């Protein structure tokens, strides 16, 4: 019997497991294969909802499902925290069990790390957990005017488009309420342009100028002073705020760090084409947990899940691996309530987004629902966004 073990039942891990369960159904029923997903949480959260909750565009019940219910019945689900991964002995230890594997998929994701910036957690709001997204919803609703600062306090972080989308949504939200002129909206970003990819950054800069969103670039947050309501940069600037929405720096899951599987930043060194953890042919890493030079985005995890599940299937059936990951990512950029554009790019081809339009926005809203019935179910791995 071959054992496939997936650590992390978020977006990437769930798609890999479900897709393999479809393809290997007969072998699973006969007991020739075993697929196990381990996650410390019994709940699966659709994280893109966090950006939309503060504006009332999505709600808690659309963002959460039971992981057990999302997984195919043939998959074993263990709600256990993994605390050691021993890739030399093919052993994964949780609080209550020791699990052996033939194939291991690491999909442990990324998490906010507030400790990297003094004052960050107390000084402002963010939308990187469900609880924080709701706190922010309240703050956004109560805000009556003054300076609203949207800042990125460390790269990399999950969903590189989210902070600028937040700024666009805030502009749109307050414009619709008729109070936009009482609010000064500032966007602080660590690079010399408002987004990583240069040609997209040009378009974003133009949109921000048009919407009177002031950009302060090359602003790397050093500390936040919650009492004085000030953000200080490494470059020596200090900006005052009335309401701050801060994107925290991120790091990989503790378990991959303590298991000695990461680089200095907490990311797993991963072959950019095969998605093998470097040096181990029986261990794959996907999604936010990797050090791949692509966005930490659910769509990247989805495209990578397609490669890993196909290649594991190939191996089990005696074929050589038939897919390579080409760096593909697909991201929407919501540019207003009712308007979005889309980025599709890979290692070789930069994106060329269409002008913002209603169709893209509509598709994004439809996708938010399709995630549960198509993407996470592993029915069309690699086609989601």
């Amino acid at each position, binding site marked *: 019997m071959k054992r496939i073990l997936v650590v992390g039942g978020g977006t990437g891990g769930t798609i890999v497991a479900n897709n393999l369960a479809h393809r290997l159904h007969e072998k699973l029923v006969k007991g020739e294969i075993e697929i196990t997903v381990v996650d410390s949480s019994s709940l699966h959260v659709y994280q893109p909802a966090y950006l939309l909750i503060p504006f009332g565009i999505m709600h808690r019940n659309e963002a959460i499902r039971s992981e057990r219910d999302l997984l195919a019945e043939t998959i074993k689900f263990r709600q256990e925290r993994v605390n050691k991964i021993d890739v030399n002995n093919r052993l994964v230890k949780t609080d209550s069990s020791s699990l052996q594997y033939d194939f291991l998929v690491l999909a442990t994701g990324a998490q906010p790390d507030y400790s990297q910036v003094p004052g960050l957690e107390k000084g402002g709001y963010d939308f990187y957990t469900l609880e924080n997204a709701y706190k922010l919803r309240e703050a956004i609703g109560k805000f009556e005017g003054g300076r609203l600062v949207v800042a990125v306090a460390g790269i990399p972080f999950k969903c590189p488009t989210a902070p600028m989308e937040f700024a666009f949504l805030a502009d749109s939200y307050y414009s619709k309420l008729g109070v936009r002129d009482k609010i000064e909206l500032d966007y602080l970003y*660590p690079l010399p342009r408002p987004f990583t990819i240069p040609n997209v950054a040009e378009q974003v800069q133009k949109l921000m100028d048009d919407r009177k969103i002031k950009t302060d670039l090359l602003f790397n947050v*050093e500390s936040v002073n919650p009492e004085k309501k000030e953000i200080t940069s490494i470059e*020596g600037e200090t900006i005052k705020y009335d309401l701050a929405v801060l994107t925290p720096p991120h790091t990989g899951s503790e378990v991959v760090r303590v298991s000695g599987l990461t680089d200095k930043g907490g990311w797993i060194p991963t072959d950019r084409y095969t998605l093998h953890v470097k040096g181990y042919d029986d261990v794959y890493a996907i999604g936010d947990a990797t050090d791949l030079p692509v966005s930490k985005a659910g769509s990247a995890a989805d495209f990578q899940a397609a490669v890993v599940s196909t290649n594991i299937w190939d191996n089990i059936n005696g074929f050589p691996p038939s897919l390579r990951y080409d760096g593909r990512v697909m991201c929407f950029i919501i540019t207003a309530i009712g308007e979005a554009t889309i980025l599709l790019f890979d290692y070789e081809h930069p994106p060329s987004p269409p002008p913002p339009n209603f169709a893209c926005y509509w598709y994004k809203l439809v996708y938010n629902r399709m995630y549960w019935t198509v993407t996470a179910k592993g029915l069309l791995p690699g086609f989601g966004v």
Partner: protein
Amino acid sequence: MSHEEEKVKVIDARGSYCPGPLMELIRTVKQSNIGDIIEVWSSDEGSQRDIPKWTEKAGHEFLGVIHEKGYDRIRVRKTR
């Protein structure tokens, strides 16, 4: 190797893409002493444009670029 060469802190960010090399430089400058020279090895073309811009804004000294085969060695001195 000259005396100055010995004090150079090298960040090998080859193979890392925007904004990797710049972010590693910022992190290293933060942890260095005034006067230290930091050299970033980068194969990302954007570094040649972004690193001087950041150095100027942050008030440090840009010392120049040495082109090697397939990558650049970009030097900065921490001055404050």
